[in-house]
């Protein structure tokens, strides 16, 4: 019996807890709760705290996160005013401004983001289409028009979002700008070609320098050699001239000079191992003939 009482008390406590859970609800800071009575929205509670309610199915509570939420748009291709295709992705910060309208028109955060995404995309393409590419990418910062684009987009989207979905847009920003694949490929080509041009320029500069240096070296060498040759010739000529001057003395007795010269030549040309055939008339070998004749003469 005691066990039964304990069990019964336990069961009653659990049941009471269940009922209590259905009789109160808590709204946290940064949340907003919409209370519906038999399906019809009655009030929106924004202040945090504990509140009383009727259990389901009399009243039902829908909590929403009331803080600013960021919607990330997709990286979508549009065309600028001068016909260039760019990819632009945009993000937007939104929060629920009118909870009752939000519950009625939208209901969930996912659906809200879908609707907002569609809304933003419509205006985004139009806004980007009014800008030229040079206003998106330019070395002069003053030419860039990102601020105007964002403000224009925000102004365009704010009113429909509020009126249609009860959503308030806090900010809109351009997250990234890119180029589609095909254009990317050609931009790569251009970057590569620019670098290639630079590389080729360096290479040919080097080659030109090298040729110049070589030519200079060659010409210097030729100059040196030519100058030296000229000098040498001059010196040799001086030598010959000096010699020629001296040789005037041979004019005193040219026959003797010739004879002496012949002797010199003979001495130099008759070397070892040369074979000489002499007639017995040649001096001094004529003595040989003369000796026999001498005997005969006797």
């Amino acid at each position, binding site marked *: 019996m005691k066990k039964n009482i304990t069990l019964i008390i336990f069961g009653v406590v659990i049941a009471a807890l269940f009922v209590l859970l259905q009789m109160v609800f808590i709204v946290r800071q940064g949340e907003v709760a919409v209370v519906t009575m038999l399906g019809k929205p009655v009030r929106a509670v924004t202040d945090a705290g504990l509140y009383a309610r009727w259990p389901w199915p009399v009243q039902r509570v829908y909590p929403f996160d009331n803080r600013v939420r960021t919607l990330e748009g997709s990286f979508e291709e549009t065309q600028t005013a001068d016909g260039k295709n760019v990819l632009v992705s945009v993000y937007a*910060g939104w929060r629920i401004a009118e909870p009752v309208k939000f519950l009625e028109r939208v209901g969930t955060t996912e659906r809200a983001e879908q609707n907002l995404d569609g809304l933003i995309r419509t205006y985004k393409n139009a806004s980007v289409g009014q800008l030229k590419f040079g206003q998106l990418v330019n070395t002069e910062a003053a030419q860039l028009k990102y601020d105007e684009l964002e403000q224009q987009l925000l102004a365009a989207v704010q009113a429909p979002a509020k009126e249609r979905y009860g959503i308030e847009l806090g900010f809109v920003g351009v997250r990234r*700008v890119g180029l589609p694949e095909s254009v990317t490929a050609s931009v790569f080509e251009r970057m590569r070609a620019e670098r290639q041009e630079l590389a*080729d320029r360096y290479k040919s500069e080097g*080659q030109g320098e*090298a040729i110049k240096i070589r030519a200079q070296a*060659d010409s210097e060498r030729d100059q040196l050699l030519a100058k030296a040759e000229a000098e040498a010739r001059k010196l040799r000529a001086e030598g010959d001239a000096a*010699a020629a001057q001296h040789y005037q003395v041979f004019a005193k007795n040219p026959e003797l000079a010739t004879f002496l010269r012949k002797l010199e030549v003979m001495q130099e040309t008759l070397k070892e*191992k040369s*074979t000489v055939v002499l007639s017995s008339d040649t001096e001094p070998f004529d003595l040989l003939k003369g000796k026999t004749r001498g005997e005969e003469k006797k």
Partner: protein
Amino acid sequence: MTQNRERMAMFAAGLSALVALIDFLLFRKTGLFSVLALEPLCALAAITCVIACARLRLARIAEDERRDEALARKERPDATLFAGGESEPFSAARSLEQFEKWILPAVPVLFALGLGIAAAWLYRDISRAVAGPHDHLLAAAFLSGQSFFLFLLGRLLFGLSREDAAAALRGAAAPLPGPAAALRGPGTALGVTCFAGLVAAVAAVASHVGDDPRFDRFTAFALTAVVGVLALEQVLRFVIALYSPRHRRPFLTAYESRLGQLVADPTALARNFASAVDYQFGFNVSGSWFYRLLRNALAPLLIFQLLVLWLMSCLVFLGPEEEGVLEHFGRPVENRWRLESGVHAKLPWPFETVQRVEARRVLVTHVGYETDDETNRPSVLTWTVPHYKKEDMYLVASRAPQALPGAESADRNAADAVAASLVSVNIPVEYRITNLLAHVYGVQQPERVLQALANRALTRTAAQHDLADFLGPRRAEIGRALQTRIQSDANAAGLGIEILFVGMQGVHPPTQVADAYESVVGALEQKEAAILTARAYTNQVLPVARANAEKALRDAEAYRYRRTELAAAEVTQFEKRLQAYETSPQVFQTSLYLSTLRDALAGARKYIVDAPASKQVLLFNFEEKAYQDLLDLGSPPATEKPK
């Protein structure tokens, strides 16, 4: 009376089959998976009832036969020649024996197989489900109704199963469970089905109220798990009973499940547990005061434990990197909402809760790249190798290149083309949370907002600089400007953070064109190499030329000197000889001639020929040598002309 039991069993089987059919139709209509998960349990109950009915029938017929036989033997003793023989081969007793020996042991295995296959099938179906359920309340109503009926039937069958035991206690000695105990199995199965039906009904209602099909799916998975566990239990039971020495007839009931009994007949479980403990320990444990104390204290202990668990949410432990925001019914408590790291006391959930924030830690968000685990990074980061798993490319402006002469046509094409380049930037943004309240209650997912802001700042910064600025010495300056811009944007968005550091690391042209950049450096090297080679040539050629020039000059000087000196010497010699000649010309000439001849002809081979004026022809053969000399080694080498 016994026929009554059979009829109840068949009725229960019929009802279970009907419930199975209804559940199937319900599943088709509503799409609730927890209803589908009830099917194997209903089937189990139906089959168990049929088997129990068959067994009861066999038992009854065997009992009748035995009674008839005993009666017949009493009337006519020794009627047959062969008394005390075996009973007829096709008697019901024999059938019962065969039934108990062969069919009943096979049944748990079959159940295990069937339940296992059903569980696997269910799991696959539920995992693959796409559409959401509807008409929950209808299903809940049906399920509650059938659970009620099944509950009644289950209790009835349990009651019937205890009849024989009661009768046995009244009269007989050994309390062997009678054949009616076979009804325990169906009772258990029905109890389990009833409980599962109730759970499914609750899940359906929860799905409807919470508008979340995940309740239903979760319950369906749980029920599938239960079916799987029951299958395992049957296998276990089969194995244990096979080796158990205790029961003479181990497979008394077709379906016996301890887990099922936990749900269907808890008191019986308690009783069985007590008797099992008694058996194990060998003495009457269940009668002792300690056991009874424990049994009485069990429930309060559990409650106490739950209470303590709940009260443990009074304590909050915040780590060294964390700070907390104390909320009272969802609203930050005034003046004392900030909790530092350490331990804090608060009211239990849901009265007070704490939001934890990593406010002391330096947090990082990555812009322009996605990191993966560090082990995959290449050890040498060159521009041609991607540094990270995924790197985004940003548009940078490009200044018009320096116009080379003769490149006007190229410039015109460039104006038509896109005047931008692409760069890959890896920027980690390090930040710290400074304003807790703004961070927690201002924005949802502040990291995402920060990343969007950082990307935006980077896009703008990149769009107004040239690639060379990014790669070159202005990089640090750009990084600082980026940091300032991100900080002001974050303040404007109310994020409550302070940007500590924006790192401009990993700025490089896209990997697809990086090799072109590297080849420029290679070209510079080649230029230098060509120039140096030419200089080497110069260094090689000029000194040689200078040396040759010197040599020529020296040669010429030597020649001049020689000529001059020689000429002077010759002239002196000639003048002396002239003097001698003028003294006596003939003698001088002859003596000089003869001495010269002597010197000249000394080494020559001489042939002196008498030359009369005749017509004799002399033949000289100079090919043969006149005399063989040991040192005749051929013609002598050419010697220098003495000067």
